[in-house]
C-alpha cells in the first residue's frame, strides 16, 4: 500500500473513532433516524396513515407519505450527518490545534481533507440507509434513494469543509453551520407552499429531492430528471470551485 493510502487509512480510522466517541456527533447521526421513525408512526396515527394500512388506500396517498418520510430522512441525514459533524469536527480540531499537529507530522492538507470528506460521505450514506430501513418504504426505492442521497450530499460536504476550515473555534462553527444546515433542509420547507417549493428546488439538495419525488411517484424519466440533475451538478461544481479556491488559504491560517 502506498504511503498516501496508509496515511489516509490512519486518518479515516482516527476520525471514525473520534466521531463514535463524541456524543454530540452521535446525536447528529441518530437524530435523522429518530425523526424518520417518528414521522412514520406520527403519520400512521393520522387518518392518512389509517388509510395506508387499508388495502384499498390509494397509491397516491401511500407514495405521498413515503415521499415525505424519505425526503426528510435524506435532507436531515445530509444536514446533520454531513454538515454538522464536519463543521463542528473541523472547528474543534482547529481550536485545539490538532490540525496543526497533524500537518507538522508530515501529513498533507489533501490527506486530512480527503479523509474528513470521505468519512462524512460514509456517515451520511449510513444514516440515509438507516432512515430508509425505519421508513417502511418499498425496497424497490432503495437504490435510487441511496444514489440521490449521495448526489445531494456532495455539494453540502464541500461547503461544510470550507465552513469548518473557516471557523476559528466551535462558537464560530455554530454560526457558520446554520446557513449550510438550512440549505440542506430547504426541500423540507418546500412542502409548506408551492412558492417556497419553487425556490428551494434550486437549493443544493433541491435536485435530489425532486428526483426522489419522481422516483416515489413512478414518474422518473430521463427528460424529467434533466433539470434536477443539472441543478445538482451546478451546485457540486460551484461548491468544488469555492472549496478549491479557499481551502489552502484557510488551512494556512491554522
Amino acid at each position, binding site marked *: 500500500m502506498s*504511503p498516501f493510502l*496508509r*496515511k489516509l*487509512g*490512519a*486518518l479515516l*480510522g*482516527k476520525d471514525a*473513532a*473520534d466521531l463514535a*466517541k*463524541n456524543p454530540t456527533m452521535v446525536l447528529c447521526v441518530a437524530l435523522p433516524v429518530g425523526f424518520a421513525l417518528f414521522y412514520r408512526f406520527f403519520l400512521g396515527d393520522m387518518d392518512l396513515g389509517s388509510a395506508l394500512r387499508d388495502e384499498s388506500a390509494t397509491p397516491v396517498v401511500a407514495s405521498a407519505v413515503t415521499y415525505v418520510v424519505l425526503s426528510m430522512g435524506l435532507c436531515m441525514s445530509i444536514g446533520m450527518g454531513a454538515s454538522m459533524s464536519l463543521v463542528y469536527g473541523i472547528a*474543534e*480540531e482547529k481550536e*485545539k*490545534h*490538532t490540525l*496543526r*499537529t*497533524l500537518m*507538522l*507530522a*508530515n*501529513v498533507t492538507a489533501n490527506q486530512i481533507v480527503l479523509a474528513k470528506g470521505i468519512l462524512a460521505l460514509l456517515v451520511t450514506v449510513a444514516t440515509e440507509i438507516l432512515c430508509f430501513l425505519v421508513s417502511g418504504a418499498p425496497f424497490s426505492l432503495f437504490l435510487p434513494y441511496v444514489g440521490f442521497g449521495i448526489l445531494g450530499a456532495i455539494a453540502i460536504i464541500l461547503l461544510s469543509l470550507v465552513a469548518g476550515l473557516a471557523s476559528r473555534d466551535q462558537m464560530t462553527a455554530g454560526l457558520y453551520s446554520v446557513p449550510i444546515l438550512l440549505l440542506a433542509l430547504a426541500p423540507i420547507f418546500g412542502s409548506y407552499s408551492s412558492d417556497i417549493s419553487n425556490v428551494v428546488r434550486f437549493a443544493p439538495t433541491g435536485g435530489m429531492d425532486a428526483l426522489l419525488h419522481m422516483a416515489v411517484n413512478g414518474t422518473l424519466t430521463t427528460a424529467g430528471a434533466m433539470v434536477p440533475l443539472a441543478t445538482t451538478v451546478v451546485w457540486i461544481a460551484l461548491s468544488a470551485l469555492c472549496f478549491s479556491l479557499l481551502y489552502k488559504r484557510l488551512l494556512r491560517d491554522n
Partner: protein
Amino acid sequence: MEALVEREAVQGGRSLHLECSRECGRRARRALQQAQGARRAAYFLEEDGGFDRDTVRSYLRFFARLAQMPPAEGERALDHFGLRDHSRTLVSRLSAEQKALLAFARMSLFSPELCFCERPLADLSPESRSLVLAWIAERFEAGTVFVTVGQPLREALLMPGSAYWEEEGRLLPAQVEEEEPDDGPVPDEVRVCKIAVRAGTATLLLDPREIDFIESANRVNYASVRGELYPTALSMDQLDEQLSRFGFFRCHRSFIVNVQKVLRVERFTRNTFNLVLSDANRSSLPLSKGRAEEMRERFGWK
C-alpha cells in the same frame, strides 16, 4: 534569526537552542518549516492539544501508523518515556508533564532528521528531564538536528549544540569556550563572606551556604536561593573568586554551582554533562566538558 536557523540548522546541520521570546520562537519555527524541504521533521509546540478522546496508547498507535511504523513502535515509545502505567489514560486527563512526555514519544516515532521544540524541558520533573535529555542526546548522536526555543538559557545550555540568547531582537551566542583556570586549588579557608543581592527595594546579604547556584542571564547575574532568583551587582569573576572558598565551582561560563548541592552528574553524549542539584526546583545546570575534568580533579572524584 531566520538566517541563523537556515544557515546553522538546515544547511550546517548544527543543533541550535535559543533563549528567546515567544514571537522569536514562532519566527524560528516558521523559518525551519519553510527550509526543511523533504527532510523528516517533528515539532513539539507549547500549544499542542486535542486528541482528548484518545488514550495514550491509541494516540501513539495512530502516530505510529502515520509514521509508517508497526504498532510495536508505539509500545516501545510508551516504555521509553515511562508512560506504560498511563497507556489507558485519556490524553485529556494527563498532567502537563505527561503530555510533554507523550509529545516526545510521538516525535520519537518519526525518527526525525529535524526536530523543533518549544520549551522542551519546561514542565518536566528531574526524572522526566533525564529521560528527555537522554533521548535528545541519542538522536543528536544519530544525526538529528534540534532547534529549541524558550527560556531560561540554563535549559538551552543543557542540550547538545549551540546556545544563543536574544537581546533587543538579536541572537547572541552564549559563550561556552573554556577559560584558562586561575591558580591551583584554593585552600579551604573560612572567611566572613556575604553576597549582596537585591530583593525589590531591599538588599539582602546572603550566606554562601544558602546559595544553590549563580546564573548569568541577559547580562545580569542571579543568585538562586530556595528556588528564587535574586539579582546581584557582582560580576561572575568576583562571585567566582569569593565563592570558590565555600565549595562553589564555575561549572560553565554562565554558572557557578554550590558543589554541596550537587546530587548527581549526568552524561548524555561524549561532550554533554549536566549537574542535577538537590535544591527546591531540582535544577539542572550545564557542565562544560573541560570543566568536568577540572571538577573531578579538584574534588577528588574518580
